[in-house]
């Protein structure tokens, strides 16, 4: 069954204490090349049947209405993948 991925990130101007904690940990490990870490969310929506433009439009509406709070977050990606958590690593 097709899976639609929605990725949500905190807006640039919003403090991300989770990301700050991680960048602090990296610095303590001597990984000081990394000046910032921001943490977002990835949703995987499994659907029955084909993914068409109408369905993607519906997902966009859901993403902006519920998956993200657009006061503090941006929907940065919506797309289809073949299987869950498809690796995008090179």
């Amino acid at each position, binding site marked *: 069954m097709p899976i639609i991925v929605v990725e949500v990130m*905190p807006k640039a101007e*919003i*403090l991300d204490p*989770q990301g700050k*904690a991680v960048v602090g940990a990296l610095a303590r490990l001597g990984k000081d090349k990394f000046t910032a870490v921001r943490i977002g969310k990835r949703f995987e929506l499994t659907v029955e049947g084909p993914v068409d433009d109408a369905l993607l439009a519906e997902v966009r509406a859901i993403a902006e209405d*519920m998956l993200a709070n657009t*006061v*503090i977050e941006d929907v940065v990606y919506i797309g289809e993948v073949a299987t869950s958590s498809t690796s995008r690593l090179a």
Partner: protein
Amino acid sequence: MTRIGVITFPGSLDDRDAQRAIRLVGAEPVALWHGDHDLHGVDAIVLPGGFSYGDYLRAGAIASHAPIMAEVIDAAGKGVPVLGICNGFQMLSEARLLPGAHTRNAHQQFIRRDQKLRVENASTAWTNEYTEGDEIVIPLKNADGRFVADDETIKRIEGNGQVAFRYVDVNPNGSMNDIAGVSNERGNVVGLMPHPEHATEPGFGPDMPDAMRSGTDGLRFFTSALAALVSR
């Protein structure tokens, strides 16, 4: 008798305390259920604290889409007094009835303390029995209590007097402009992170200079709603 509804969501914790506070000021508390489309004709509505639907998506996010929220949004639009306490505040901002949003506390930790607040707007449906500038102490307990909004929104709500409460002495969660509570433009919808319903009965409230657990500074939220309803 004035009837004030308290909505119970799965994961609500302070619904019974809110009901008790309502009873203490001489009104009738009415238990409302998140899954109903029925406000049972109540005169005012309280969204209580807790961790509705586990706060699994964001604090208050899933609850803001609960069936009864359609009726709450409709009632708020008609001027019915609506108070959101802690998780209830988060629901009201997720539902866009109040400006801004909440994120994890800046220090990443859950915090519980008796918190001093300054009343910044004493003309809302839930604050009219206070005087502007009053300092009150009520308990605060949250993990996702950092009030945030973009610069434009902050400027607008500060200009409109929609900042109802500000933290005094300590900003416990990194909230912008020390904002502890806000109202909508009309002043019938108010939300705040600290818990007035936990400071309504001597013996069970915050410690005060004169006696332990004697604080009842939260009572006037509920008497304010009664006054607002009489004057409508």
